[in-house]
């Protein structure tokens, strides 16, 4: 039973035609940076689609292009040295790459919002949080200052900031990391965006606070039907929040699947390696004195300036054969809705053990 459908080569083809409820579609996106060492392709032909109300997690290690993809969506890539070299970003049928800057400003923070890892650097230390949240509301919704402030306080209350009226008069440094991230979420959701892009929103936070923030995002999403793109390196966060998952490696999408398929039957050796390298806290309690060794992914992520000619993961991969070193594998649908870019995906799916 081989359901593989090979698509066009060069990774240009995205998954199946966009479903009707797609809000954001990224197609064959290419973002480059010019550096002294040459042009690097930070994002190299990445496609993904986000549907209304769903959570898409984008995972990968540092430098895999997961954040650059998100910044490209909002056209926040500094140019030079950066440049969107190709592809399409469709938001509700409009190509964002073709919009003028003023048109783009109406989308940013209004229809598509973003929150970042370190809330302290995204908040202005000189203004109260009430003013910062209300500014976004006044700007995008044309409310008076007083109405905007009232809405800001309501938003702060909605993200469970205790004593929101008086807290609105606080400056960012007077709040804890978790509270600051709540302010960012209040700001991001204040205009009722259709898409929320959260780039490592809990990485700087303690686990008990992380649990609060993730629960908050889920709850807001449920109420508002927002599509969420959650960028993270933490497979635990993915397992607990994602509907679908995109795995990136060295600027490319190497796997996409719904969350259960990805965790139970990873099709790409990199995904399998990532899952194996995480200490299993659940099995922990059961195990005896001796822990099994963690699966290592040998070597390290290649430099984007010196990518190998074939599959970028081949030098670290136990499945790699001559074919892998010769040509990059195309993204193919190996099971319904389960895409992987690997010449040996069928063997990996079948549970084969690497050499």
């Amino acid at each position, binding site marked *: 039973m081989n359901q593989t459908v090979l698509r066009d080569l060069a990774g240009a083809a995205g998954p199946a035609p966009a479903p009707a409820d797609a809000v954001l579609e990224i197609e064959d996106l290419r973002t480059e940076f010019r550096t002294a060492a040459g042009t690097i392709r930070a994002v190299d032909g990445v496609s993904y689609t986000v549907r209304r109300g769903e959570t898409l997690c984008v995972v990968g*290690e*540092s430098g895999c292009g997961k954040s650059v993809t998100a910044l490209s969506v909002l056209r926040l890539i500094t140019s030079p040295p950066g440049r969107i070299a190709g592809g399409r970003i469709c938001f509700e049928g409009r190509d964002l790459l073709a919009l003028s800057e003023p048109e783009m400003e109406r989308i940013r923070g209004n229809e598509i919002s973003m929150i970042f890892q370190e809330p302290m650097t995204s908040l202005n230390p000189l203004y109260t949080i009430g003013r910062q949240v209300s500014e976004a509301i006044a700007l995008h919704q044309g409310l008076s200052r007083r109405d905007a402030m009232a809405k800001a306080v309501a938003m702060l209350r909605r993200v469970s900031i*205790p004593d929101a009226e008086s807290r609105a008069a606080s400056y960012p440094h007077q709040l*804890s990391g*978790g*509270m600051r991230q709540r302010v960012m979420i209040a700001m991001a959701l204040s205009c009722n965006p259709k898409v929320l892009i959260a780039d490592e929103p809990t990485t700087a936070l*303690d*686990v*008990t*606070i*992380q*649990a*609060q923030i*993730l*629960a908050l995002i889920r709850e807001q999403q449920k109420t508002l039907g927002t599509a969420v793109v959650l960028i993270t*390196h*933490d*497979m*635990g*966060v*993915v*397992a*607990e929040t994602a509907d679908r998952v995109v795995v990136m490696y060295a600027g490319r999408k190497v796997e996409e699947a719904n*969350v*259960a398929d990805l*965790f*139970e039957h990873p099709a790409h050796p990199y995904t399998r*390696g*990532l*899952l*194996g*390298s*995480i*200490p*299993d*806290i*659940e099995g*922990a*309690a*059961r*195990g005896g*004195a001796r*822990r099994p*060794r*963690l*699966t*290592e*992914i*040998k070597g*390290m*992520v290649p430099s984007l300036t010196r990518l190998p000619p074939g599959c970028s993961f081949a030098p670290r991969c136990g499945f790699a054969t001559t074919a892998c070193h010769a040509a990059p594998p195309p993204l193919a649908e190996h099971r319904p809705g389960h895409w992987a870019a690997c010449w040996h995906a069928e063997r990996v799916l079948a549970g084969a053990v690497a050499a």
Partner: protein
Amino acid sequence: MTPLVEVRDLQKHFPVQRGLFGGTTGQVHAVDGISFQIAAGETLGLVGESGCGKSTAGRTLLRLLQPSRGEIRFRGDDITNLDSTAMLPYRRSMQMIQQDPYASLNPRMTAGEIVEEPLVIHRMGERAERRDRVAQLFERVGLRPEQRHAYPHEFSGGQRQRIGIARALALSPALIVCDEPVSALDVSIQAQIINLLTDLQEEYGLSYLFVAHDLAVVEHISHRVAVMYLGRIVELTDRTSLFETPLHPYTEALLSAVPIAKVTARRRQRVILSGDVPSPINRPSGCHFHTRCPYAHGRCRTEEPALRMVRDGHLVACHLHDGCASLPLAQPH
């Protein structure tokens, strides 16, 4: 048998100063009376959230910070108040691996010089012997010998952490304090470093004090685990008991907050704590955790619970477990 390291009622307070000429206006009770032992060849994990004092505890244990009170014994010797000369032979046996491999290596020294430096400081061996030792260490931690001549910036994060480990191993220590050694690394590299640390422990019989916030990592590497909250140890037991039957409500919440990388874990019951960790300058009365504890009752607000053994080797500081060794956690009010 004497434990390798024993710490009794260790305290470290930092004064809080106000203004340009201001006097001391308060104390940060970073470490507030903790006691533990580490046996030879054992890993004690020290977990807690930011600001709980776990890193300060590690640094104070090594006498990189002078304890405000308490006692540190190494192989039975009291080293709490030794001066730097008297401390030197002990320093050889107690090393450290830091969190940030970028910040803890001198950018002007080659990797080889960095690893050799402890040998030079402790006047160990001739030049040629030292070179051999460095080559051997490089090989042991998985670096190529010719990489000795490269500078820290030429290495990746994982490789830099390997240099840090080689440096810590140079003097054949008995104890290594690992302060968040893998939190700055990518997951696939984390696994490499954790496996390396485990192998080295087996090979050389090392003891580790493993300070980290990532419970999954701590659980994987530790034999026993101490959980800290606002400067105090709230629970201390072997790994299996801690993860199977956590007794302190904070440990329970901490465990249930960790995202598990399995889709089957989605439907589990979770305890989500409300509020933030209180400031260590202005700590709550009684049990420090009572402001966030779902089980807190009257006594918790006024009376500080002592760390006591409620089961074989299972220590917990919580009024719920006073006097009754097998009391299960109460239902939240």
